[in-house]
């Protein structure tokens, strides 16, 4: 029987990945992902996992190696953060387009400049549209479990897409939490052996990566979109099976936390949801009808599930750790988009917090709740800016 241990998030993830028995692991050092790849290389060096650890010269190389390995029929894994993910971006589009079920972790970290090693979600969100499925963990346990779920979903023949598990850099990678590492046998039973639908095989030669003319390319692109949408049901199914086998609801599309009867509903993803839940508990004790809808699956976007979860709210505040410069939020417009087709006209506000690891306290969350509960509505606000650090700006006519 598996038992709870106090483990560092990244270490726990490495051991969970090892239990998924990847054939090929390729990774390049970047803070705060490094502990995952260090531990995996140790596990392989000690012979606890029979796999190839490829010491690459960059994240671009890492992504390319797992692409080649996956095309050759291997179960392949990589992990990265921030700048590393940026460097992988071109390859990730390619992996998704070639429908290779690679699994990767992103230890979410701010993207330079200014240089910051601390957590926000702008790295992962900037590759939002590339076809990689993105799921987000709230704690170390979910980071562990979501990796097992990710291999199962990615390799499902109804999906066949790369899948990225997001865990907040430092906040989840470097904290020690009680974690239950699943035993090898049930993981083997849950995942099974990876059998590629198509692979590079000298006995059955196929060409991978042919170019297309305009009369054929668009269908290939649509199929990625379609597979993303199909994966919604597969994620739910696999997550339900995981819960049955391991007793934890770590996967799925959303978590609805005291939101069913809530008038003010917050929407967020990742580790910040722990703080938000504490605030909700406190405000509920005071009689305020506040709840949280936590986005666990970000791409594909769980539109229907969100509409269902949010349509009873009187007001919504989306709390994001990222944004689109020159536009606003990333999730905020997603939520508005989903609700636009409903008859409800729920005011939606967007708040940008924690960029570059800026601390957000329970008081900050309470302030956001208080402001929107009073009827304030903001399009997208960088919350908690320090005016003393801002230059005197010349007004634009």
């Amino acid at each position, binding site marked *: 029987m598996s038992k709870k241990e106090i483990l560092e998030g990244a270490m726990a993830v490495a051991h969970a990945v090892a239990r998924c028995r990847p*054939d*090929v692991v*390729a990774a390049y050092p970047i803070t705060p992902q490094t502990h995952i790849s260090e531990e995996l290389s140790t596990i392989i060096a000690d012979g606890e996992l*029979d*796999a*190839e650890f*490829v*010491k*690459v*010269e*960059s994240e*671009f*190389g890492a992504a*390319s*190696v*797992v*692409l*080649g*390995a*996956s*095309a*050759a*029929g*291997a179960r*392949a894994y990589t992990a990265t953060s921030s700048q590393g993910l940026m460097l992988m971006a*071109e*390859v990730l589009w*390619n992996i998704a387009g*070639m429908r290779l079920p690679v699994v990767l972790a992103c230890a979410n970290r701010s993207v330079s400049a200014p240089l910051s090693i601390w957590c926000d979600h702008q790295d992962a969100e900037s590759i939002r549209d590339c076809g990689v499925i993105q799921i987000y963990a709230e704690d170390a346990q979910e980071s562990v479990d979501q990796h097992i779920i990710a291999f199962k979903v990615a390799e499902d023949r109804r999906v066949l897409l790369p899948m990225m598990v997001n865990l907040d850099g430092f906040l989840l990678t470097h904290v020690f939490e009680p974690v239950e590492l699943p035993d090898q046998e049930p993981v083997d039973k849950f995942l099974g052996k990876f059998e590629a639908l198509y692979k*590079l*095989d*000298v006995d059955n*030669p*196929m*060409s*991978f*990566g*042919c*170019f*297309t*003319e305009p009369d*054929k390319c668009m269908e290939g692109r649509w199929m990625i979109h379609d597979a993303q949408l199909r994966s919604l049901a597969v994620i739910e199914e696999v997550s339900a099976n995981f819960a049955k086998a391991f007793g934890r609801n770590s996967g799925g599309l959303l978590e609805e936390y005291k939101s069913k009867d809530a008038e003010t509903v917050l929407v967020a993803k990742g580790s910040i949801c722990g703080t938000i839940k504490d605030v909700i508990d406190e405000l509920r004790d005071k009689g305020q009808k506040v709840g949280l809808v936590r986005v666990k699956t970000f791409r594909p976007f769980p539109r229907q599930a969100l509409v269902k979860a949010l349509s009873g709210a009187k007001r919504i505040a989306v709390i994001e750790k990222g944004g689109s410069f020159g536009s606003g939020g990333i999730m905020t417009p997603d939520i508005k988009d989903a609700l636009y087709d409903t008859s409800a006209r729920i005011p939606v506000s967007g708040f940008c917090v924690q960029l570059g690891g800026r601390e957000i306290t329970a008081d900050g969350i309470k302030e956001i709740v208080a402001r929107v509960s009073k009827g304030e509505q903001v399009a997208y606000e960088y919350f908690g800016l320090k005016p003393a650090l801002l230059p005197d700006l010349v007004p634009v006519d």
Partner: protein
Amino acid sequence: MEFNYADRVLKPGYTSCLGCGEALAMRLVVQACGKNTVFTNATGCSEIFTSRYPTSSWNAPWLHSLFENSAAIASGVFYALKHSGQLEKGVQVVAMGGDGGTADIGLQCLSGAMERGDDILYVCWDNEAYMNTGVQRSGLTPLDADTTTSPQGKKSFGNNRPKKDLPMIMAAHGIPYVGIASMGYYRELAPMVKRILQIRGPKFLQVHVVCPLGWKSDPAKSAEMARLAFETGCYLLYEIIKGEMKAHRAPKDGWKPVEEYLKPQGRFRHLFRSADAAMRITGIQAAAAANIRKYYGDEAVPQFARDAEAKIAEAAKATA
């Protein structure tokens, strides 16, 4: 007449240009590798002319991903096959790319694969510019070549830098095999590749291939042009096997003046138009002399090449 293409690694029907040196060399090299090979291909002419969906000329497993990662995806394939026991059954991995995809944008991935000691053969088709995108200059474009991004003009003799010495960069990785071959000696390619594939560890082969479109040369004379590149000392051929340098045998009719190689090519036409430009040819001749001396000894340098060296030295003194 009936043809049987079942044993061909690269089947007919690909859409390369007439006189394409890359197509000729590739057909011979991949045939020598055999069907027990997984090939990876960088984006470029060879990828485009062999793999227009839903058709493919490849009769062996073939993977194209991006412009700059042919070496890295080959590594990925290599480790997957190693893990599944395919390598023990004799399956081998061969990566390919053009000069830009190898020496410029793909150099990092290539260096990584070579440094790691991955047992792959990387073949660089060197046609000396970005031909697939319309003849732009690459790091392997020779000095004074007119390309669309190193155009000759009133203040330009074309490409202002000599060719990057990629084989020596590869040799500096301490890999067991580095070689430079030429499509001009196409009969040598197959036995050479078969011999190279006996060597375990990372192997790098650069093949000089003529692009009649980019070089503005006669498509009927591609092999002849490639031979002239060697016979004039402009493009030296050698192998470094486990650290030991072996130069290609010297041309049997002696070294020729560089004009014989430059003149039939439109990309060097501007060098034959003025006295200043003629001095550039003298410079290319002097560089060829240094090449010949380096690999064949001082006694091998012909008199006309020595004269060019003297003229360049004199000019340098005058400007100093």
